[in-house]
């Protein structure tokens, strides 16, 4: 097995990652791919802010601005935030519940490669005639009128990567239901695991509507159907509903894992048990449930009628209640704790006021009558950036610092971490706070330029300056990552010194089988409990025995590659002679790979007891 080899050539490492089914390596793949798309989306954001820095700017043309704007939103939500969240869920959740891997390691790998090929496909649109330009929401009336292949790239790319996300979500659900270590009851699960659980359930229910919507769009644009064509009896509003039935749960799919990461951070660095654990669980589940009842608050101005608007307004405001419960619990966790202001803790503390500001504007937007004023203005842009950046992105930065040692075995530099934090925090508020007022002053969202003399110059300039701060902060983080990897100083099991949950009880990074013996969980914060009783590790729940492990496989890559090829065929089918052939060829690759997978028995392999005993002495050094 690969992990026994100490030094490997680049080719071997590459092959290992292309075929890996290990949740820890898949987490690293998600981190790298998500990080790449995050930088791409960030560059697009910079272009947007350069264009809007001064009135009447011609840095980009109106049409190109639409493409950049659309790709910024789409990339950030689907290709950056989601995979980065998945990176932490993959890296941490199986360790937190004391499992040796996720329930379906093969599917885990398939999920990643589908996401990756979908993302690459979407971004190839830049080179093949133009990116999508109907906004990340791709409302059908705009999308159907778009002349380039951009929207086709959007629909097909998201369809592929969405399948990967759905697979990942189901995998996490089964893992948490079936693979908790002995003693790990539901009410002893760490908050991040709970967040992963509810998030995965949201993925399970929210992605099918998107799949349906995207298929309707694909059929309309590429295969001559008329679902959204009003002239032929279709209805464009159907897209809006399908999109938001997915879209609102999607924003909670992003924020719940962020809440989970912060819950861990507050407890660890306040060195106190999370305040109100059971109410936290309750609030998380309730948010997940309510998240499905509010989608039409994005459509108040489409003319749903006063009754529907009122119902959705009240339901939306109700979500603020469980969210408030969580905010207070975090503050009470810090209350009386002995707080250590490490980099992750700084992000967590800054998250509270930033996110609350976003929540407050959310409730303002939820008043349907008032939303007629706010809708499609920069006020909405400010709202969702306060919740998504102030919530999700802060959590991703915090989580990167917190879990870096667990994922790579090295600590990111704390000083540089704090530099990143302050630059980003300042940049974030500079950029987005002023946008509330730009919106209230009447600046519509999604415009490519504005005129001088309307009072919008100063606000936009400040906003653009803020973006530069955030860009520098990100560069500092990248430097930090490179420096840390070059120095390569390995750390022990519990580098923060205050780890509470199971992942801190084993080596950083853990051996590929995670737990030599499954741990016995005796309560919430299982590792902390043992430490408080003076033990230096978990009590095993089973005798040392052979461990069954899955084999690596290249098939997930091939399945995803086939769909990637087929997508090109579907797109060019109508206008070229080879399109249909490519479509069939791609599907043949995918189905062929699936066929091979189902007829070829792969029983995996066993790590023998004797080998496990042998490396007792040098544990902690293997990846």
């Amino acid at each position, binding site marked *: 097995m690969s992990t026994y080899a100490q030094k490997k050539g680049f080719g071997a490492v590459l092959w290992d990652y292309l075929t890996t089914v290990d949740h820890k390596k898949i987490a690293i793949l998600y981190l790298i791919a998500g990080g790449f798309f995050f930088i791409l989306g960030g560059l697009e954001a910079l272009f947007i802010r350069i264009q809007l820095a001064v009135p009447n700017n011609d840095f980009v043309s109106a049409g190109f601005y639409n493409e950049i704007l659309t790709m910024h939103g789409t990339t950030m939500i689907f290709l950056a935030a989601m995979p980065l969240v998945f990176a932490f869920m993959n890296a941490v959740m199986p360790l937190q519940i004391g499992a040796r891997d996720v329930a379906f390691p093969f599917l885990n790998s398939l999920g990643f490669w589908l996401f990756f090929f979908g993302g690459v496909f979407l971004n190839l649109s830049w080179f093949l005639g133009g990116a999508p330009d109907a906004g990340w929401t791709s409302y059908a009336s705009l999308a159907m009128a778009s002349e380039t292949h951009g929207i086709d790239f959007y629909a097909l790319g998201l369809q592929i990567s969405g399948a990967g996300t759905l697979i990942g979500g189901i995998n996490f659900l089964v893992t948490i*239901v079936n693979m908790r270590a002995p003693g790990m009851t539901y009410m002893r699960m760490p908050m991040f695991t709970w967040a992963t659980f509810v998030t995965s*359930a949201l993925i399970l*229910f929210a992605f099918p509507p998107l799949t349906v919507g995207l298929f309707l769009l694909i059929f309309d644009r590429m295969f001559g159907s008329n679902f959204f064509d009003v002239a032929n009896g279709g209805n464009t509003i159907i897209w809006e509903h399908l999109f938001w039935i997915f879209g609102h749960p999607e924003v909670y799919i992003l924020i719940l894992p962020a809440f989970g990461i912060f819950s861990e951070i507050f407890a660890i660095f306040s060195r106190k048990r999370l305040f109100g654990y059971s109410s936290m669980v309750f609030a998380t589940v309730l948010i997940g449930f309510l998240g*499905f009842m509010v989608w*039409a608050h994005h459509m108040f101005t489409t003319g749903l*009628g006063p009754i529907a608007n009122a119902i959705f307004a009240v339901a939306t405001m109700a979500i603020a209640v469980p969210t408030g419960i969580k905010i207070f619990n975090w503050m009470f966790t810090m209350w009386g704790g002995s707080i250590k202001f490490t980099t992750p803790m700084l992000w967590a503390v800054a998250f509270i006021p930033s996110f609350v500001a976003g929540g407050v504007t959310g409730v303002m937007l939820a008043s349907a009558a008032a939303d007629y004023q706010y809708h499609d203005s920069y006020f909405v842009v400010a709202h969702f950036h306060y919740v998504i950046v102030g919530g999700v992105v802060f959590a991703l930065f915090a989580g990167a610092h917190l879990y870096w040692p667990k994922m790579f075995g090295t600590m990111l530099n704390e000083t540089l971490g704090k530099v990143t934090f302050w630059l980003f925090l300042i940049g974030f508020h500079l950029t987005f706070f002023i946008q509330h007022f730009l919106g209230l002053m009447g600046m519509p969202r999604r415009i490519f330029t504005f005129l001088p003399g309307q009072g919008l110059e100063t606000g936009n300039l400040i906003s653009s300056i803020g973006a530069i701060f955030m860009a520098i902060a990100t560069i500092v983080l990248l430097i930090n990552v490179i420096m840390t990897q070059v120095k390569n100083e390995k750390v022990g099991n519990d580098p923060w010194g205050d780890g509470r949950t199971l992942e801190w009880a084993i080596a950083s990074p853990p051996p590929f089988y995670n737990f030599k013996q499954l741990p016995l969980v005796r309560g919430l914060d299982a590792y902390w409990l043992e430490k408080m009783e003076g033990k230096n590790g978990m009590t095993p729940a089973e*005798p040392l025995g052979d461990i069954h492990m899955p084999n690596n496989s290249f098939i997930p890559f091939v399945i995803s590659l086939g769909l990637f090829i087929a997508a090109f065929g579907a797109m060019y089918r109508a206008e070229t002679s080879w399109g249909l052939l490519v479509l069939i060829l791609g599907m043949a690759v995918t189905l062929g790979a699936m066929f091979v997978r189902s007829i070829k028995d792969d029983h995996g392999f066993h790590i023998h007891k004797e080998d496990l005993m042998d490396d007792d002495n040098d544990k902690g050094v293997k990846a």
Partner: protein
Amino acid sequence: MANQQPSSGNPRVDVAYRRKKSAEEMRYQIVSFTLMIFLTIVAFVAVGYEGFSGWFTVPFILLLAVVQVIFQLYYFMHMSHKGHEAPALFLYSGVVVGAVTILAFTTIIWW
């Protein structure tokens, strides 16, 4: 997995218990199978009988269909057994989400 323990220390107790359990299970299976055949016949009769109008027949066979689905899930797919709480929860959540969607489409989009 190599480390799994048998569920009971005494294998013979286990077998006796299981046998009893299986017999019981078999009885349920047969009863519900008969019921399902019966319901299917009723559905056919309802459609075939001239005296019922479509306004009665359609809702009636839909109702029978729902009953059959429940039988299917609980008796043939063992959802009545212990340890199926999680699948049941997700099934019902899915039904709720689907129902809300249909409700919204039928009330605020189409009519």
